[in-house]
């Protein structure tokens, strides 16, 4: 250990340094020989007071900057759902399918196809028929678009059957839609009224959303090369018309309306009977409700 002596001017105070040719520990000797690693004395570059000050200032500045910038932006982002009147309740649309009324006419299917230019081979909506045979089997087939009579299919012997019913299906317009989650370009989104829509100009046709939908309602339209699905006829409902399938149904098996208005026909019908959604266990919270949904329907 080198002790301060008369020959070597070792100073702990940087202010006594009169400049060095090399960056040195400022021991004021301008000694370029390698520093003695045993040297434990010497001016401290920083001391506890400086360190404490720095931490205080850094923390203050950081917290101040955060509170002015990041934290205000992290307010609840509801994806713009609260549009529609400011303080008034936002419009939320919903849909009801009453399987106890459906007669399998197929009018909804042709209406949708014509209204939305749906290409042959693809469907935005379809109707399934569940047949419970007396021997316990359950069979599922699809209602032909023309209806059963025009399709000329041989009908099943009703003696073999316990019960059977039709289940119309379309996009469920989920509150927590998996399709919106997975879209890499934000082409799949929720409108302010709660309608799940597709931005066909942004869609890249990767079909990730087609995979993600647990209900199988999406497809890639070969004409537009974009994802496609039931939109609850957004172009109609924004002009106070009903979706085409709802308009076409002769037995009121499909009902469209506002879920946020307790007086709407939709809510009044939902209030009267038990109703369900498809695949509730997946937590998608569909806005499409079913009356008369049997356990076998998935």
């Amino acid at each position, binding site marked *: 250990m080198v002790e301060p002596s008369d020959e070597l001017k070792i100073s702990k105070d940087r202010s006594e340094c009169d400049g060095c040719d090399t960056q040195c520990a400022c021991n004021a000797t301008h000694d370029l020989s390698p520093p003695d690693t045993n040297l434990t004395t010497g001016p401290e570059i920083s001391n506890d007071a400086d360190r404490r000050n720095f931490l205080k200032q850094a923390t203050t500045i950081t917290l101040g900057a955060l509170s002015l910038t990041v934290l205000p932006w992290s307010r609840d*982002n509801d*994806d*713009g*759902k609260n*549009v529609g009147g400011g303080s008034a309740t936002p419009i939320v649309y919903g849909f009801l399918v009453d399987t*106890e*009324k*459906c*007669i*399998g*006419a*197929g*009018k909804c299917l*042709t*209406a949708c*196809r*014509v*209204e*939305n230019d749906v290409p042959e081979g693809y469907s935005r909506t379809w109707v399934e*028929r*569940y*047949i419970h045979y007396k021997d316990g089997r359950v069979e599922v087939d699809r209602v032909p*678009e*023309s*209806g*059963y*009579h*025009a399709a000329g299919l041989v*009908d*099943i012997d*009703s003696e073999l*059957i316990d019960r*059977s*019913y*039709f289940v119309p299906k379309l996009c469920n317009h989920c509150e927590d839609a998996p399709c919106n989650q997975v879209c890499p370009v*934000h*082409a799949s*989104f*929720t*409108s*302010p009224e709660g309608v799940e*829509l*597709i*931005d*066909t*100009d*942004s869609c890249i046709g990767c079909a990730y959303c087609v995979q993600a939908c647990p209900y199988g309602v999406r497809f890639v339209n070969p004409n537009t090369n974009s994802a496609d699905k039931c*939109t609850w006829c*957004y*172009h*109609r409902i*924004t002009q106070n*018309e*009903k979706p*085409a399938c709802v*308009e*076409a149904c*002769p*037995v*009121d098996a499909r009902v469209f309306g506002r879920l946020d208005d307790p007086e709407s026909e939709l809510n009044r019908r939902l209030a009267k009977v038990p109703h369900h959604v498809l695949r509730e266990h997946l937590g998608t919270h569909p806005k499409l409700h079913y009356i008369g949904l049997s356990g076998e329907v998935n």
Partner: protein
Amino acid sequence: MNNQDPTIMSATRHLQILALLLLLGGGAALQLRNMLVPATFGEIGTYRAAALGTNAAHPLTFPSDARCLKCHEDVQEERVESLHTVVRCVHCHGFGAEHITQATAVEVDSSVTIASAQDWDHHFPTKVDLFITYDRATCLACHQATVGMPESFLQINVAEHLEDQGAEDVEDVNVCFECHTGHSPGL
């Protein structure tokens, strides 16, 4: 700080360089973002707000009954007591897009001719714009008893019904109209 000796760096030079890089880099990133993020994105939510307009701008094709009954008020009178008010005009008469265009135009320009109704092409969905048909297929599309129909619905087994009712020409394609009319078929 050090005017005499240029080889000596200032104590804060590295911070200045860093600040400059951050500024330039940040500016470049911001510019890149503005170029890449599409217009109207983020206005309402994490999507292009313009897409709402695109979706809403799709033309309406399927006419509601109210649209037809605006001109064809006599049909409304025929149907008023009937259960068949629930059957849409388009189910038996076609989607009528051209017909509505012509009908709207004739209100402005009386020289426009409204094409008369054609025969049905026996397709669901039909390619014919406007048709009048008495073909039993339009009735049976809903009323032929099929497995799956709810019991409350009025459905028939065609052969049995025709026999019960004593239809004259069982094979006739228009046999339903021996007894029923289209607009108020209830008997």
